[in-house]
């Protein structure tokens, strides 16, 4: 458990947006499975933590949810990234790169 990475606020949103933009529409379970697959460390305590991010993003109008049938004929809410979401993803990614640099600088040089 010690090597579990705690996600910083704001980063989960970024990851979800990124996943939706590269993979196309996904339901919550699909997203969770994808994130676990991509991460080298276990990212989250459990998959329920995804929901706040989904709600937040939906409220911002960056993703849209719609009920559909899965391949196995189960019902699920599929989320897809909107145009605004794509734009936001670009901006957020840029901002993140900048801030990460700043944190590095602060941690290494000034403390």
């Amino acid at each position: 458990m010690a090597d579990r990475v705690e996600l910083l606020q704001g980063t989960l949103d970024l990851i979800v947006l990124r996943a939706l933009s590269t993979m196309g529409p996904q339901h919550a379970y699909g997203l969770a499975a994808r994130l676990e697959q991509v991460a080298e460390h276990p990212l989250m305590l459990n998959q329920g933590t995804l929901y706040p991010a989904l709600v937040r993003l939906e409220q911002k109008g960056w993703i849209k949810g719609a009920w559909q049938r899965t391949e196995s004929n189960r019902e699920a809410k599929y989320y897809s990234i909107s145009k605004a979401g794509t734009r936001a993803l670009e901006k957020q990614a840029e901002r993140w790169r900048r801030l990460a640099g700043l944190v590095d600088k602060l941690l290494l040089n000034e403390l």
Partner: protein
Amino acid sequence: VQRFFQRLLSLFRGERADAEVTREIAAHLALLEDEYRRRGMTPDEARLAARRALGSVAHAKDLHRDARSFIWLEDFHQDVKHAVRGLRDAPGFAVVAVLTVALGVGANIAIFGLVYQTLLRPLPFARPSELVKIATDLPQVADRFDSVPVTAPDFLEFRRSNTVFSGLAALAARDFNLTGSGEPERLHGARVSADLFSILGVRPERGRHFVAGEDEEGRDAVVIISHALWQRRFGSDPAIVNRTILLDGRPHAIVGVMPADLLFPVGRQFDRYITFGPRVDIWEPMAFTKAEREGEGDFNYGVIGRLKSDVSMAAARLQMDVLTERNLERIKKLAPADFKMFTRVTALHDVFTRESRRGLLFLEAAVGLLLLIACVNLANLLMARASNRDVEFAVRAALGAGRRRLVRQVLTESLVVTSLGGAFGVAFAAWTGPVLLAYGPSSAAAREWKLAAPMLAFAAMMTVTTALLSGLGPALRAGAVRARLRSGSRAVTGGLRQTLIAVEVALCTALLAVAGLLLHSFVNVTSVDAGFGIERMLAVDLSLPTREYTSARTEIFYGDLIARVRAQPGVDAVGAISLLPIAHEGVISTVLLDTDTQLRIDRPSAFRRSVTPGLFAAMQIPLRAGRTFADQEPAPVAIISEGLANSLWPGAALSSVVGRGIRRDPGDPVMRVVGIVGDVRADALDRDPHVTLYHPLGQDVRNGMTIVVRTKRDPLAAVSAVRAAVSDLDPDLPIAAIRTMRDVVSASLAERRFQMSLVTLLALLALVLAVVGIYGVTSYTVTRRTREIGLRVALGAQQGDVLRSVLVEGLRPVFVGLVLGVVGGQIGAQWIRAALFGIDPLDPAALGGVAGVLLLTATLACYLPARRAALVEPLTALRSE
């Protein structure tokens, strides 16, 4: 904004959204289960594993709900926790900041409590807004009497003919000698119409009110007593009702006991010309005698009315004007041709607040300044703290905290500090409030001090305002941390800090200046020449019951008493005077020349006092011309004060006035002026001397007199001898009051002393805060400049140079503030102009003293850090940071 509305909407759609989440989570679980079954688990295992992977369903829903709802509550909680932790890590900062706020808020609540209890709280009567006071305006004497009470015939006419009041009651002061069981005692009391208490809507705690008819002559031998008297004199006797007591030698039945919290006017609170005792212990029904009922021109009775619930104050005034016209018609032949009279209707509430309103509002303003200073100090502290935390803020910003979030966090921190301070402040106020009320103006003393809901609301408002005022600057600064880091600049707050110091010093100087002016005024008042000697003087109030003491017996009694007291060792001189100056307001009359054939209202009015021959020597009132009274004065004579002589006969030499004639009424015999004495300050030490007309006791006998004993040494040593002499002559006679003139004077200055001490105290607190502020800023500056100073020292700067430069920099805003503050103090001084005595607002002594004190302490506050700077070792300095 969009999110905000979404959330708002979701508040209303909560149920539907919940159903949606339930559905979504169920779907999620189904998919997970499918996956686990595919991996070969049994259906049960798969369901459990799916649940584990998703986490608690309820938790997932909660997370969902949180994201939907307002998250700021959660953030606030976090910020508070963070702030508390931060304060624990910096206990020095925490203690200073919390104490600063506690001081500012506490002082404000204490004073606001005084204001609330005195000015704002509704009177403790039923439907108090309906209660009014009725008084008479006599425009022709408005310069001397701003308004006077009502005559009995006018009152009776008002009561008979008005249709606007549901009740109208008269009241007057009346003191009694209580004899019979135990020590004889002088009681302060009042005569009131039988229905006064039911008009006020207060109930006796025992027994009953007066009933209709008890305010008729012959049926009025009943009284109601105060709770305090019941406890003190009658040992809380449960069978007190219907007990009979002797008042002025006549039996009276006690019919009721009023509750302890009854509000009844004391002193001259109700009307300047009706003097109740310092507390009122006994009430008698107002049964007008025939002479009183017909007493035209005797403006003696206070009147309280209750407006009918559907009648406005304006409507009542209109009708009273009509009724007053009718009254004027009735007295037409008695009054001068151009006599005018109006009736004044005012809210009863104003009666109880009038005296103290101005002084209290001034105190409120002063204490408000103190809070502002506390805010400035706190802002400075937070700012210094914030600039040490740039790195922390930068990290937080980098981790995703938005600008607004940072601002909010610093504001929360300041709110935590002010809340703690506010809580301590409330405790501090709860402790000091009752003390304040006890020493406060007499009009407030009748009420108790307790924390009422409006005061707590006020405290909460103060706390939040303080947090915003002092936290906003530092908060915005923290919010801007990213921009600052980007530009690579160091924090530049020097200018802002200097401004804050200047503001602080200005506020403090203004308070100190006002305090200085009040202090100097107080010194002037206490050292003013009263016109008589205050030291080594004992004043003994007596009142002989009129039933037993005829005029002749009264004169003999006082003559005997004076002779007995004078025979005591240690006594220099003894005299008696009706109505002691400063202690008792005098009876005022117009004084006419012997040539005046009708009443002339342009003649001077004077206090009239009856005296025994030895009085002038005993009081040390100087004789200017003529002689004092002899033991026997067969013809009508008078002694007048210098001021009265000058206004009756302008320009005449005092010696030439002796022998001239005056009278009080065209029909009265002419009195010859036999002597002229100095004027005395009869109202109060801080009011101009009032002119006086003295009668020999035998020609204007009063039953109530004050014996004045001039002693060689401590006047209190004569007390027992005086008591013995009185009880030798009449064992049933109570001594109403016995005290030194010094105490009388001191009591008369109570309100002035209260205001002066409180403002001085507030000003000193302000000075402490300002000094702490100046020290803090200078010290902080020195710390930040350690490197630079070290460099300068390394380059050859002398210790003196460093010291001087730090001092100059630290004191510059102090000078600016000082100048602004003196100007502000002038504005404050205009406000309390009436309280200034013997000085003008630009009093050099007060202002010079204030500037001196302030500069001295400020210099000291700057000197300590400056010395530290001067002792900086260049090497250590360069290694710092």
